[in-house]
């Protein structure tokens, strides 16, 4: 089974040289720590920054320079800042190669819910609805099972939807899945030490098992 860093590490393998990448809040943010050597990526932060650098050294924080998670960050060589409309122009016009998001639920058709629990929690969608409506390549990083032990990979989302039929790939603590265009979670890889039975038990939606499913390799 993978921890949060393991999920982030596995997703980092999906990043290709030259990509512009938008990372959501939570596990997706961790992906930045595992980008393989020799691969150049530019991180976009939707508040209006391209070329997001690491956290500043202590004492060098600049309140005017933050990321979409409101964390203090730094510039890199080649960074650029811009207003929020231009930022979502980049997103809508599909200039971003890869979007990595967290989710509360994903359906077997690739629908995603991640912004609201009616009556309990209302944080808002932020940029997520714009991202999922336009992104050409969305990977979801999430825990497959909630604290009550219930699967979050569902036949149909029960929470208010963020976007329909938009998720392409999901990485959880148990495995890697692609979404089948006619519905279903295609199991591509098992997390180290995880059995098909465990995965089956933790998947409420249709699970498609294409023959022998390899154990994932992360280092």
């Amino acid at each position, binding site marked *: 089974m993978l921890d949060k860093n393991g999920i982030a590490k596995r997703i980092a393998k999906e990043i290709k040289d030259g990509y512009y990448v938008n990372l959501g809040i939570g596990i997706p943010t961790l992906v930045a720590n595992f980008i393989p050597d020799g691969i150049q990526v530019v991180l976009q932060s939707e*508040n209006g920054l391209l070329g997001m650098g690491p956290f500043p050294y202590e004492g060098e924080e600049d309140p*005017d320079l933050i990321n979409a998670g409101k964390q203090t960050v730094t510039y890199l060589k080649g960074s650029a*800042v811009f*207003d*929020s*409309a231009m930022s979502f122009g980049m997103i809508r016009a599909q200039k971003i190669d890869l979007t990595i998001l967290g989710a509360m639920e994903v359906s077997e058709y690739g629908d995603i819910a991640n912004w609201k629990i009616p009556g309990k929690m209302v944080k*808002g969608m932020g940029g997520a609805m*714009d991202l999922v409506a336009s992104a050409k390549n969305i990977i979801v990083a999430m825990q497959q099972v909630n604290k009550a032990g219930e699967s979050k990979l569902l036949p149909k989302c029960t929470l208010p939807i963020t976007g329909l039929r938009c998720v392409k790939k999901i990485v959880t603590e148990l495995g890697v899945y692609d979404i089948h265009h006619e519905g279903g979670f295609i199991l591509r890889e098992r997390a180290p030490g995880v059995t098909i039975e465990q995965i089956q038990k933790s998947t409420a939606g249709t699970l498609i098992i294409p023959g022998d499913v390899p154990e994932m390799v992360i280092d």
Partner: protein
Amino acid sequence: MINKVVKNADEAIKDIQDGAVLMLGGFGLCGIPENLIAALLKKGVKNLTCISNNAGVDDFGIGLLLKTRQVKKMISSYVGENDEFERQLLSGELEVELIPQGTLATRCMMAGYGIPFFPTPAGVGTEVAQGKQVVHHRGKDYLIEEAFDSDFALVKAWKGDTAGNLIYRSTARNFNPLMAMAGKITIAEVEILVDAGELDPDQIHTPGIFVHRIFQGEKYEKRIEQRTVRKKS
């Protein structure tokens, strides 16, 4: 050259009345009009509708106006940092319209560009689509979203001149230039106010035509919401 300078924040907001619709620049606490918010708090105007990406935190930014119950309605995209906000929302004391961040930004931009509505794919098939017209274009659905109609835009820039020209700094730019263009009356507070002619025309982000009043803020706390650092190795 027309002089747009007013003495201070109190004078700048003197005609903002109860029930006004305001746009407030900033993302989180970054690039918010601190001095104007303080002046609204002092004046005690009520029943405000605030268009702002976030609602501040419990004790800073728009959060201050929520605490005093001066806000009737918030139009925002993300409000996760403010417990008082969530409490007022869940109890029904505060009216809230949550909209996608890109839609929020573009509804500001379109107001500034004089375009009354625009299509966007964000929110199709979600709660956000309720009551909205959907258009189908080349195989894809889009929601029709309207440009914002606001009484005042309150923005914060880094530098400004007496003609109302503005320059923003780093990611404190965010929604500020969009809202500056969108307000029926736009009020800008700046960290550094200079005479017209001292800013390089090539570097201006918001031309003075969009700005009606400008002043240099008394002081800036520029609070950091998430102070994240690394150690020198």
